[in-house]
C-alpha cells in the first residue's frame, strides 16, 4: 500500500490528501444514502402529503436531472481544464456544499408540492455538479495503486455509520444531523478554497502537483480510454446493471415491513451492527480484490454475490409460501448481511473505477457518464419499473424473482462474455502463429 510508504517518508501533505478525499467522499455518500435516498421519501409522504408513487416519480425526476447536470458539468470541466485545477475543484465543491446546506436546512419546512418540486430540481443541480467535481479530486489526492483500498475505506466508513448509528428515517432527524455535520465542513472548504497563506499554499500546491503522477488511471496506462470505447462502455453497462438490480430489489425490500424491521430498521442494535460489520467486511474484501485482480474478477464476484443474495431472499419467500404460517416471521439477518456485502462490493468498485478509467483530461466527463448513467439513470429506470410493478400489484416474491432472474442473467452473461473474449484472443493468437 502506497500510504504506508508516504507515512514512512513523512510526506504529510500527501497523507492529508488521503484524509481530505476520504472525508469528502464519506460525507457526500452518507448524505446521499441517508438524506437523499431515505429522507426525501419521508419528506414527500409525511410532510408534503404525496403518495408513495408520486414521491417515487419525483425521485426519478431528481435522478434524471442529476444525470443531465452531471454530464454537462463533467464535459465543461474537461473542456475548460477545471478537471486539472485543484483549487477550482475545491471552490466548486464549496459552492455545492453551501447550496446543499441551505437545502438541507429548509427541507423539513417544506409543505407544498411546488416547493417540493423546486427543492428537488435545485438539489439535482447541486448533486449533478457535486459528484463529477468530487470524483475528479481522486486524480490529485489518491495514488493509483491505493484507489481500491481508499474506495474500500470510504464505503466501509459511510455504511458503518449509516447502519450502526440508529437514526429514525425521518427528514427532521436527517436534516438536524446533516446541518450540524456540514457546518464545519463548509468552514474547512472555505479556508481551502479562498484563503491564502504560505503554509496552506505550499500544501495545496503540493497536492495539486500530484496529478502529474496520480492522474493517469490504472486502465489508461497503455493509452487513454475514450468514452466511446468498449473498455469504457462495458464497465458502464455492467455498473448500470448492478445499480439497477440493487435499486429494484431494495425499493421493494424497504417497502416490506417484515423484511425492513428485521434488518435495516431493526429495533435491535445487534442486528444493525451485524449489517454494519458486514458492510465493512464486504468493502475490505472488495478493496483487496480490486487491488490484486483484473476488473473482470471483481465484477464476477459482485454479480455472484448479488445472485446468491437474491437466491437466498427468494428461497426464503418460496419456503414461506409453502409454509404460510411463518410468512410473518421476518427473515434471518444472514440475508441482509449478504446483501450488505454485495452492496459494499459494488460501491467500492464504483469509487475506484471511474478515476481509474480516466486521465486528468477526461476525469470530469468519465465520472459524470459513469456515475450518471450507471448510478442515477439506473435509479431512475429501476424506480420507474418498481412503480410499474406496484401498479401491476406484483407480489413480493414475483418482484424479487425478477431481480433474481436479472442478477443471474448478468452473472451468466458476464461469464459467457469473458469466455468468448478469451476464445477470440486465442483465435487471434492462433491466426498470427499460422501466418
Amino acid at each position: 500500500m502506497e500510504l504506508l510508504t508516504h507515512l514512512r517518508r513523512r510526506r504529510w501533505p500527501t497523507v492529508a490528501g488521503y484524509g481530505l478525499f476520504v472525508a469528502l467522499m464519506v460525507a457526500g455518500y452518507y448524505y446521499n444514502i441517508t438524506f437523499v435516498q431515505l429522507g426525501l421519501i419521508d419528506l414527500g409522504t409525511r410532510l408534503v402529503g404525496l403518495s408513495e408513487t408520486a414521491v417515487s416519480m419525483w425521485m426519478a425526476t431528481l435522478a434524471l436531472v442529476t444525470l443531465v447536470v452531471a454530464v454537462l458539468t463533467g464535459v465543461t470541466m474537461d473542456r475548460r481544464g477545471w478537471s486539472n485545477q485543484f483549487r477550482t475543484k475545491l471552490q466548486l465543491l464549496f459552492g455545492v456544499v453551501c447550496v446543499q446546506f441551505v437545502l438541507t436546512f429548509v427541507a423539513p419546512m417544506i409543505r407544498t408540492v411546488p416547493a417540493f418540486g423546486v427543492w428537488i430540481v435545485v438539489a439535482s443541480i447541486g448533486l449533478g455538479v457535486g459528484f463529477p467535481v468530487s470524483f475528479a479530486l481522486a486524480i490529485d489526492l489518491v495514488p493509483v495503486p491505493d484507489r481500491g483500498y481508499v474506495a474500500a475505506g470510504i464505503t466501509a466508513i459511510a455504511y458503518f455509520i449509516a447502519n450502526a448509528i440508529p437514526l429514525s428515517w425521518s427528514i427532521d432527524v436527517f436534516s438536524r444531523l446533516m446541518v450540524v455535520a456540514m457546518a464545519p465542513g463548509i468552514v474547512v472548504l472555505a479556508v481551502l478554497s479562498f484563503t491564502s497563506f504560505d503554509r496552506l499554499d505550499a500544501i495545496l500546491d503540493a497536492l495539486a502537483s500530484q496529478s502529474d503522477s496520480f492522474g493517469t488511471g490504472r486502465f489508461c496506462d497503455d493509452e487513454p480510454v475514450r468514452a466511446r470505447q468498449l473498455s469504457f462502455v462495458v464497465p458502464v453497462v455492467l455498473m448500470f446493471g448492478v445499480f439497477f438490480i440493487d435499486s429494484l430489489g431494495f425499493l421493494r425490500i424497504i417497502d416490506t415491513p417484515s423484511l425492513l424491521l428485521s434488518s435495516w430498521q431493526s429495533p435491535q442494535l445487534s442486528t444493525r451492527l451485524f449489517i454494519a460489520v458486514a458492510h465493512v467486511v464486504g468493502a475490505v474484501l472488495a478493496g483487496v480484490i480490486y487491488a490484486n485482480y483484473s476488473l473482470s474478477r471483481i465484477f464476477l464476484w459482485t454479480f455472484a454475490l448479488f445472485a446468491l443474495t437474491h437466491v437466498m431472499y427468494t428461497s426464503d419467500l418460496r419456503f414461506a409460501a409453502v409454509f404460510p404460517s411463518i410468512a410473518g416471521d421476518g427473515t434471518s439477518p444472514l440475508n441482509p448481511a449478504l446483501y450488505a456485502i454485495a452492496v459494499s462490493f459494488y460501491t467500492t468498485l464504483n469509487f475506484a473505477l471511474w478515476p481509474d478509467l480516466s486521465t486528468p483530461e477526461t476525469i470530469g466527463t468519465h465520472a459524470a457518464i459513469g456515475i450518471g448513467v450507471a448510478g442515477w439513470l439506473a435509479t431512475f429506470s429501476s424506480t420507474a419499473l418498481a412503480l410499474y410493478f406496484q401498479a401491476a400489484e406484483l407480489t413480493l416474491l414475483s418482484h424479487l424473482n425478477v431481480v433474481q432472474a436479472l442478477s443471474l442473467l448478468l452473472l451468466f452473461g458476464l461469464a459467457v462474455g469473458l469466455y468468448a473474449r478469451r476464445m477470440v484472443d486465442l483465435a487471434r493468437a492462433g491466426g498470427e502463429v499460422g501466418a
Partner: protein
Amino acid sequence: MTPTEAIPLLVVVLLLVSIGGGDVGAMSVTFEGDHEVDTRADVHVVAGGTTTVPDDATLDGDVYVIGGTAAVDGTVDGDVTLLNGNLSVSDGATVTGTVQSYSGSATVSPEASVGRVSQFEPPTPSSSPTQRVGGFLLQFLGLAAFGWWLVERHPRVVANVGAAISDHALVSGAVGSLGATSLLVLFVYMAFTLILLPLAIVGLIAEFLVILYGQAAFGYLIGTRLPIERDGVATVAGIGAFLLLLELLGAVPYLGGIAQVALAVVGFGAVLNSYFGLQRFEPVTIPGGS
C-alpha cells in the same frame, strides 16, 4: 425460527431420513401454533410451536424435533429424534423405537415405555486426553502422508500454494473467506433442492479437503524453515508443528478460534488462487506504485 435458520436443520432431517432408507410417502412440518400430530404423514418435523401426540392416538412414523416443542402422550410407532427445541415423553406414553437426542431439552418419564433412549455426547476436548491425542495423531498421520506425497512427487505444486500463503496472505484471506462462505451457502441451498443433494454433499466434502490441503501447505512452509535437509521429512515435521499450533490456538478463548478460522481461510484462498498449485499466483500490476 426463520426459514434461513430452519433450512440447515431441515437438510439434516432430510439426510437422516435418506440414510434411514425407509419408504417415505409424506412429510409434515409444523412451524408455529398448537397442533395435534398429522397421522397421515410418515415423517413429522416439528420446527416451531407445540405438536402433541394425544394419549389416545397412535402415530405410525418418525418424529424429528428441530425447534419448538413436541409432547408425546400417546404412542409413536417409530423413532423420535431431537435436534433442537424441547421434547417430552409423558407417563404412559410409548415410543417403539429410539428416543435419540442430539441437542435441546428432552424429558422422558420413567413411566413411559421407550424402546431405547440415547443421548448424543459430543466429544469434548477435555473429556479424554487419550481421545484427543488419538484424534490429533490420526489427523497428523493423514495430513503428513498427503504432505509427504505432495512434496516428494509434486514439489512445485505445494511450493506455489505456499507462495500464495506467504507472499499474498491478505489476498488469499479475502478470496478464501469469500469463496468458503459463498460455497457453503450455495451447497446448503443446493441440498435443499433435494435433486442436488448428492452434489452438495460432495461439494461440502471437497471444501473440507481444500482446507486440509491449505493446512498441508502451511506445514510445508514451516518445514522449509526447519533445519531438516530432506524436504519430505521437513514437511512432515512442519505439518506436525502446524497442527500443534492449531491445538494451542484452540486453548485461547475467542482470539484463538478467530486465528484458527483466519488460518483456514488463508489456506483455502491460497489453494484457489494458485489453481490448486498449478500456477504461481501473481496479483495484477498496477502502474504508479513506488
